[in-house]
């Protein structure tokens, strides 16, 4: 059996996914299975970026496809299937984060200290070389989940503030405040101040 096309390949050609969505909406379970195979990598990536945890991400993806399957007949097709799936996934991830916070009593303070993940090299050189992907991923994972969800949805997935607020169950202004905090924390972590600058700001 031929390997299924990657999500990126499918997303670059709108036809195959659209046809699968039409067939799935008509009740063709095999078509929905193909949709799962084609999009699960992206859904998992989004879930993992928001939750920061492999197991949570897997649970989120399962729940998201279940909701998508149940709601497929209501999918009007005026948005891309992947965009619709991202919103469901983001919503499931937000729900999972809420449950996790309640169970583990963690990350209650958005302004909590961020774990240091950046190497202690020359600060000027660090600014010049730009954000390393691994460091960025680690810095994202170290953010409090409320901040991480917003910055991932806005700056990685380009969702508008209104949609982010709706998916996370917060106000639009709260989403903007969280985005500002998240970006500031990431910047401070990835581009730490030099000793001179630290002294200057402490004065």
């Amino acid at each position: 059996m031929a390997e299924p096309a990657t999500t990126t390949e499918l997303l670059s050609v709108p036809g195959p996914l659209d046809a699968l969505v039409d067939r799935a909406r008509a009740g063709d379970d095999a078509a929905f299975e193909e949709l799962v195979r084609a999009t699960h990598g992206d859904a998992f990536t989004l879930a993992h970026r928001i939750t920061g945890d492999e197991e949570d991400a897997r649970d989120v993806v399962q729940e998201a496809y279940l909701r998508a399957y149940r709601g497929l007949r209501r999918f009007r097709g005026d948005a891309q299937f992947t965009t619709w799936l991202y919103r469901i996934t983001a919503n499931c991830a937000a729900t999972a984060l809420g449950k996790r916070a309640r169970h583990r009593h963690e990350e209650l303070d958005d302004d909590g200290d961020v774990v240091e993940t950046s190497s202690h090299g020359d600060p000027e050189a660090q600014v010049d070389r730009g954000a390393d992907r691994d460091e960025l991923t680690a810095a994202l994972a170290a953010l409090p989940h409320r901040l991480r969800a917003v910055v991932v949805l806005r700056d990685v997935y380009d969702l508008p503030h209104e949609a982010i607020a709706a998916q996370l169950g917060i106000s639009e202004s709260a989403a903007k405040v969280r985005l500002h905090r998240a970006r500031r924390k990431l910047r401070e972590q990835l581009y730490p101040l030099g000793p001179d600058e630290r002294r200057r700001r402490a004065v």
Partner: protein
Amino acid sequence: MRCETLRRSLAGVADGTVQLDGDERRHVAQCLRCQAELAQYRKLLRALRLLRTEVLEPSPGLVSDVLAGLSVAGERHVLRRLVSGRRAVYAGGAAASLSIALAALVVVVLVTRRRSPHR
């Protein structure tokens, strides 16, 4: 103009959602600290956007887990449909029985009236 006043706006400037006024632009043009911070935000946003092209590979079994969950949900759905279908059959049967009973009652009443002697 103080750097602290501008610091809240620099991320917005980097993503194009905030426009600085003349005084603010002049400050940034002369302030190395604000220029550095703006450059950092621009690099950060570029790096975040690049993450969009990266797809994380889940450990094996995710697709089969998802499909198994869907299969269970599908079977439940079919069962629900069957149950609701049976309910419809039962309701139809009850309605038919009631109609027959009513018709029989009418026939009995009519026959009884015909047989009864006129006064």
